[in-house]
C-alpha cells in the first residue's frame, strides 16, 4: 500500500530532526576538537602538587557548608 501524504510528512519531519541532531553532534565535536587544539591552561600555578580526589571531595563539602551559611 502506498504511503499516505501524512506518513510521508511524518517521515520527512523525523528526517529533519535527525539531521538537526547530527548537525548538533558534529558542532559539539568540532568545539571539543578546538578545545583540544587550543589547549589553554586552566591551572596557571606551576609546581603545585595536585590534590587527591578525597581532598577535592572534602573541599566540595566545605564549600557547600559555606554556601549554606
Amino acid at each position, binding site marked *: 500500500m502506498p504511503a499516505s501524504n501524512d506518513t510521508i510528512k511524518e517521515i520527512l519531519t523525523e528526517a529533519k530532526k535527525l539531521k538537526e541532531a547530527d548537525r548538533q553532534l558534529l558542532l559539539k565535536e568540532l568545539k571539543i576538537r578546538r578545545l583540544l587544539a587550543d589547549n589553554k591552561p586552566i591551572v*596557571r600555578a606551576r609546581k603545585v602538587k595536585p590534590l587527591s580526589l578525597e581532598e577535592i571531595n572534602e573541599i566540595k563539602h566545605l564549600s557547600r557548608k559555606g554556601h549554606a551559611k
Partner: protein
Amino acid sequence: MRNKRFVLDPNIYISYFISRNQNALAAFAIKHKLEFVICDELIAEFRRVLGYPRLTKFKIDIKQAVYVVTTLGTAYTLAYPIKRYIPQDENDDYLIALALQTSSGTSGDYDILSEKNNLERKFKKLKILTKAEFEQLFS
C-alpha cells in the same frame, strides 16, 4: 547510534583539571562519543568549589574551566522536585536525579558510591562508577 551519556560529579572535573589532564576528558568524548551531561546546579557547584580558598594556590582560570565543562557538556534542565537518593548528603541528590532523568551513567563522590548498590538495584539502568572505573571503561 545514541551517544553514551555521563554525569560527572564536579570533583571529577576538578580532579582532571588540577592534575593538568583536562584534555583526557575531551579525548574521551571524541574517541568514545561520550556525552557529558551538565545542568545549572552542577555548574554552580563546580564554580563554587573552584573558588574555594584552598584551591587558590592553583591559580585556576575559573572562566576557562567553566568554558571547558560547558563545551564538553550538554546542558539539561533538572526537573524538580528532586527526590531523596543519598541519605548521607541531600546535596548530592541532584547528580542522581540528573543521571536518571537523562539515562546517564554517573561518577560521584563517596556518599554517592556508598549508595551504589541500593540505587543500582532500584534503578536498573543506573550505573554508578568510580573515577578509576570510568577511565577503565574508556581508556
